[in-house]
């Protein structure tokens, strides 16, 4: 079981690098979707035995993070005729270097926190921080509003990974509430992107710079 868990966590890290290295928007969204599916499966491996609750939550996470939200973003991209190129302010090589730093920092932080009583594998915490930081890299170095939504998804995935340490002790109602907030949040972001495209004829958040002091 432990080997399989570590394997999945490494795949999660790989998805981060896929997002950082990608030059096409559709690919970054698909990479985030793959990460979402992995995240849904992880709690089943980490915390047995399975109950109806844990299966429901795993199914919900896979459906929302892996299928519904990425599908919505891909659909919105098609409908709003967003160009596929990413146009980052940090090139693929620089992005990957930043990603490596993020993983390194993740391990450093995981080693510094007193995890003895927490009961999760150290790799889990490292992967959580690495994914969180990757989300920040995407949020700060990508100009397109759509890519920033993907960055937000990665960030949320990082927090979700950290929450797995506590899994079983966070009530189902809270987990469901977090997922619901995510769905509604991304949905509203998608709608704003739609209007943005109509008003500004571009989904480039760098052009959103009229409000300043």
């Amino acid at each position: 079981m432990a080997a399989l868990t570590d394997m999945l966590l490494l795949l999660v890290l790989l998805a981060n690098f896929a997002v950082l290295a990608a030059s096409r928007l559709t690919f970054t969204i698909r990479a985030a979707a793959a990460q979402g599916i992995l995240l849904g499966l992880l709690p089943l491996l980490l915390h047995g035995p399975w109950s109806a609750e844990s299966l429901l939550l795993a199914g919900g996470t896979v459906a929302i993070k892996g299928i519904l939200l990425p599908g919505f973003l891909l659909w919105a991209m098609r409908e709003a005729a967003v160009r596929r190129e990413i146009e980052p302010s940090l090139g693929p090589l620089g992005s990957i270097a930043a990603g490596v730093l993020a993983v390194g920092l993740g391990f450093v932080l995981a080693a510094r926190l007193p995890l003895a009583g927490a009961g999760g594998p150290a790799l889990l915490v490292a992967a959580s921080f690495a994914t969180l930081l990757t989300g920040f890299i995407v949020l700060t170095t990508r100009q397109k509003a759509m890519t920033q939504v993907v960055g937000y998804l990665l960030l949320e995935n990082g927090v979700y990974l950290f929450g797995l340490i506590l899994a079983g002790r966070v009530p189902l109602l809270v987990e469901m509430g977090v997922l619901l907030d995510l769905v509604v949040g991304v949905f509203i972001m998608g709608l704003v992107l739609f209007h943005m495209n109509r008003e500004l004829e571009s989904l480039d958040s760098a052009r959103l710079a009229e409000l300043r002091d």
Partner: protein
Amino acid sequence: MSLQVLVLVPLAGALVTALDPHRSRRLAWLLVAAAMHLALIGLAWRGGLAESRWLWLTFDPLGGLVLTLVSVVFLAVAAYSVGYVRRETPRGGRLFESCLLGFLAASSVVCLTDHLGILWVAIEATTLATAPLIYDPHDRHSIEAVWKYLLLCSVGIALALLGTFMLALAQDPSRAAPSLLRSALLRAPHLDPVWFKAAFVFLFVGYGTKVGLVPMHTWLPDAHGEAPSPISALLSGALLNVAFLAILRVVQVAHAGGQARLIGPVLVGFGLASMLVAGALLFRQRNYKRMLAYSSIEHMGILAVGCGLGQVATFGALWHMLGSSLAKALLFFVSGNVLIAYRSKRIADVSGLVRRLPVSGTLFVLGFLALTGMPPFAPFMSELLLLRGAVGSGHPWVAGGFVAIQVVIFAGMVTRIVRMAQGEPETPDRPRESSWLLVPPAALLGLVLVLGVYLAPPLERVLGVAASTLGGVAP
């Protein structure tokens, strides 16, 4: 009846208004739900509403205080909206009333829940409920404002969730299973200092983004400046306090768990920085709504300073939360009236306000005097108490910096206000003002005055009990 009704009444209102095609009926629902909410809070204060296991709802003095403030501001927003939509048609249609009531339901959960996970979910829900309201004008500027608001606040709040998880891990695992219940955390005999520090950093940065503390404030002037005026009043007078309550919940846990020495200086530092930066940027504003937005940041900074100092300063900060919030909401209402009459948000385009709109103009000037801490209004009294606390607890330099910033801000704002209020209006007409647009700000001004002149003993008691859970004492 249990505390659930405080959530269910606005939630039912949100559903009904989402389905009702008639604007006037929707506004009636909005008013009825707002009034019922306030009445039910009165019942809750008298112990008439039982605790509820659904969403872990409990009623405590601090949460009750913030919720009462939210409900009062909300009722004023609802009444003002009746007059506002007759002049300016919100483009959101049914979403306008529905999202307003959705915000009230989510805020009630934030103020009442004992579970820090539910608190997080509800805070994010307030962001989502207010986003369509900010975007209501549907123009370039409001798109930019809502995009920044959504992205920055969602990212910030995601960090707060991480902090919430870490807080659960700060409990001693050998004694109790990690819990996210506030009541369990308050009873925890020992909190691990490393986990608590990590948790506090993420919670403070996360919820601090929503409060608009510097340097996480960049979304706030855009959102408050571009939103329709009643929404600006709601954001400034209600939402910021709801977000600040989330930070105060962590402060409560810190005091109960013996970690208070860590967080006091952080609150004071970020508070003073917010006051300073907001004060400096306030001078560069040519737009009166943005000027008010920076003033909001400044006042949230004051609250953080007061709660960081402890002792009587905390009591002063909670008192200041009431007075400054009512004053901010009233000024955003009046700035809406100015915008309707002058059709410009630029300070330079407004002159002769007192002649052209006698009632709004007078309210504008008095509101500014109240907000900038002139006697006999409540902010004067609460800031005085806060200064007494700063000096009394051995922080004279905090008091000195505080006074210096306040004097500079007053000087900066007063020149702009005088320019807007005095002189001859460019057009001689005197538009008739609807009483729906005048009574809510006038009522709030009355409240700010009463809170300053006479602090009723029951309110003083509640402020004292709430302050004592935050390391404060009654004067």
